[in-house]
């Protein structure tokens, strides 16, 4: 029972890491980016290639995965994404679905459709037990890493100048740019950072979530749930939503294996009906 809770928390933390970049894209520029999972997959595949084929140690792969996906985001944002901010949501949906289709087929072409395995170091494979709760070292590692990153993000958002600029840009882009804030540049940096986090999430999650070319499609709905239920105005909203989703998903798969996904989607629809702006939306936000 406690083990399920623990695994659920680890899974939720992972989802948070993967989806937090999407929260920024949706919250800041109101861009429906269905291709967010593609950045995560890029990080995962980079890790798989580096650690399995070139023998780079797993821990060294993680920052590389972050940088790789961040660089990808930094290239795509000004060239492709920025043109579509002011366009209708339909265009954004079509564009990002197109990107997903392309990455799925391209990855399939280069790496094959089979699942990729990432070799994790021995010391992360241990299991130990505390007060009757079975704990996998790897999941503990994920919780620690994601928890630290969440704290870091919260600190950056609330304590730094960049954070206050970002919040200003989220709340009202025209006024923010009127005050001399370079909204475009802030968004570029944030988009790249969000993509990087997704890449890191993909690398960390390859072991737990599984990594194959359909990754962006399989987890698209999960990222969207996190963002839509958690709201886009805070860090805590998506974090709580991811934890909720992670625990519910793990518990659902354990107790009612065939109806787990069904329950999650139904709950999502119910929540969206009751709170269209998300469970944790800030009052007075847009």
């Amino acid at each position, binding site marked *: 029972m406690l083990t399920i809770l623990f695994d659920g928390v680890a899974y939720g933390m992972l989802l948070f890491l993967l989806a937090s970049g999407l929260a920024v894209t949706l919250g800041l520029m109101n861009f429906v980016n269905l291709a967010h999972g593609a950045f995560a997959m890029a990080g995962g595949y980079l890790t798989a290639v580096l650690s399995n084929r070139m023998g780079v140690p797993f821990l060294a792969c993680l920052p590389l995965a972050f940088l790789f996906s961040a660089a990808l985001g930094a290239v795509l944002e000004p060239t492709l994404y920025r043109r*579509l901010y002011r366009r209708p949501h*339909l265009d954004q949906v079509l564009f990002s679905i197109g990107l997903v*289709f*392309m990455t799925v*087929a391209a990855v399939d*072409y280069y790496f094959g459709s089979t699942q990729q395995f990432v070799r994790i170091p021995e010391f992360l494979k241990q299991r130990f037990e505390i007060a009757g709760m079975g704990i996998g070292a790897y999941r503990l590692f994920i919780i620690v890493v994601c928890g630290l990153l969440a704290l870091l993000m919260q600190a950056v958002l609330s304590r730094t100048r960049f954070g206050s600029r970002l919040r200003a840009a989220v709340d009202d882009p025209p006024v923010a740019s009127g005050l001399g804030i370079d909204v475009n540049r802030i968004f570029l940096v944030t988009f790249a950072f969000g993509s990087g986090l997704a890449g890191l999430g993909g690398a960390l999650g390859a072991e737990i979530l599984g990594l194959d070319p359909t990754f962006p499609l399989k987890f698209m709905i999960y990222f969207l749930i996190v963002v*839509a239920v958690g709201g886009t105005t805070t860090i805590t909203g998506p974090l709580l939503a991811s934890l909720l989703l992670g625990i519910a998903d793990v518990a659902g798969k354990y107790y009612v294996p065939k109806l787990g*996904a069904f329950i999650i989607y139904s709950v999502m629809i119910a929540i*969206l009906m009751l709170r269209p702006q998300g469970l944790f939306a800030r009052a007075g936000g847009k």
Partner: protein
Amino acid sequence: MTRESAAAVPAVLPQAIVRGPRFRLWELALWLAALLSWFVLPRQAPMLNEMAILALFAVSLDLILGYAGIVSLGHAAFFGTGAYVAALFAKHVMPDPLAGLAVAAAAAALLGLATSVLVLRGSDLTRLMVTLGIALILYELANRFDNITGGADGLQGVVMAPLFGRFAFDMGGRVAYLYTLTVLFLLFLIARRIVHSPFGFGLRAIRDNPRRASAIGIASNVRVAAVYTLAATYAGIAGALLAQTTGFASLDVYDFHRSADVLLVLVIGGVGWLYGGLIGAVLFTLMHDVLAGITPQYWQFWIGLLLVILVLVGRERISRAAGRLLPARRHASNGNPHP
């Protein structure tokens, strides 16, 4: 281009309503060509049949996306329900195709009516998630109750009785194609009449500016719910046609790629006019055929590339260029009304 500005200039509307939709020469030519294809291309009947089903599915999506402005990522929910109901009905109750079609349409309409409540509220993102969620839920249900649906293996052994008790479905699919084409034509006529009626103009008003529409006394919720139900019925019929003419239904009918494909079909043909679905279906099926012939496994890549290019170049620009070729083409803004 007075026609193009019709949506923007209210003074033109009453006249257009009174006159009603008039059949133009190119429209007649298009339908004649479809009929002619039955005589000229007997070997291609299965592909043409698929085309006609996809066209009906796209017309159905156009009703809610093009005319009511609802972005749906889960239109396969209704398609799949129609397919399963038609297949199960034929297998367990009665093999008559027309009765099956009616039952499947009724089932999809009920589902549409029940879920229309869910798309009335919220932003585009909420609607996107809700429609996607409904399709996923149905997929999971079909997967869960695999003793009824056959699960991943599909529902096999669906045998249809001859049409009107006389015309048996043949292996070459020619009867099937004529059947589908007739249904498509009749439903298209109905849809055409509806979108040119005051009801249809009201829908477009809601799409373009919901607040102004309700300010001039258009009951938005009722109209959106009505057109959503209608679109669900159409999608259900399209699914039923697929199940009946192929004698098969599997989990694939609820799959996400169906919802995405039909969106692409509509975008290729043009959103916001009914012929967009037809033209898109023809182009998409041909393209699929050619691409799958070249790279059977990776044709999705080219579909994706096409989507990206379409969006970056600008759908409006492309449809405007097409509009010059077809003078009667009704131009529509696909924009999401920002209140």
